[in-house]
């Protein structure tokens, strides 16, 4: 449990760093490290497939996409953020943390958990047999994403170019 709590603390710290760091590349790397810790946490919780997906896709592919976007938008990347809101973040964070702890202790722990049927079988059986509709949705969303990216990056004809 100690390792899990350390991983959770690291995950929160790297996520906060990703928000507060001014340099976008450092923020993207911080986000990737947070994903890496989340992936390790998934392995520790007995979800190796989710962990592998998290590390390879979110920490790897999405970081590469972020880096590419930051490189392509380098000259306009300097946006003046509101200093007041950045400075006030630790205050709001502490207030939220206090409320979070109080609500969890007083309300959530008193709510009885709903009964769940014990599950059996392997991950593949659950994914391919029980969650088939999810897979159909995934395929549709991937196609929609591909079409959206193609539409956004299509070459404009000379008549429409202004």
């Amino acid at each position, binding site marked *: *449990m100690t390792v*899990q709590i350390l991983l*959770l603390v690291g*995950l*929160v710290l790297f*996520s*906060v760093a*990703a*928000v507060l760091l001014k340099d*976008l590349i450092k*923020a993207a790397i911080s*986000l990737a490290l*947070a*994903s890496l810790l*989340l992936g390790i*946490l*998934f392995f520790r*919780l007995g*979800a190796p*497939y*989710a962990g592998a*997906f*998290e590390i390879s*896709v*979110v920490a790897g*592919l*999405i970081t590469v*996409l*972020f880096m590419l*976007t930051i490189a392509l*938008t380098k000259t306009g*990347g300097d*946006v003046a*953020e509101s200093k007041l*809101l950045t400075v006030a*973040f630790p205050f*709001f*964070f502490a207030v*939220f943390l206090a409320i*979070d702890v109080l609500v*969890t202790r007083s309300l959530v*722990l008193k709510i009885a*958990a709903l009964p*769940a*049927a014990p*599950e059996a*079988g*392997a*991950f593949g059986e*659950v994914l391919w047999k*029980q*969650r088939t509709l*999810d*897979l159909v949705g995934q395929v549709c*969303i*991937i196609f929609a*994403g591909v079409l*959206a990216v193609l539409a*956004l*990056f299509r070459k404009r004809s000379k008549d429409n170019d202004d």
Partner: protein
Amino acid sequence: MTSTWTPYLLAAAILLFTGIYCLLAMRNLIKLFIGVEIISKSVSLIIVATGFAKKSILVAQSLVVTFIVVEVSLVATALAIIINLYRHTKSLDIRRLSKLKG
């Protein structure tokens, strides 16, 4: 269930708060998207943690795998939109996106 679940619940709530704060306070489009990513991490963490606590990790795992695939599609589309917006406005500042303002 609750004692093993509590730290994950707390951490997921903090991540959700951080992401929403980022969405509300930041002005850089890429920073805003980092906020969205943090919120999605919070959601996947709470799904797996709940599956672990309720001994139904397989369903939770398959849901998270689906969620990650959807997330990648979302990221690709959103970053393409950000690049297109940058080409139009030469800036990543959301305050300059006022063309559609009523």
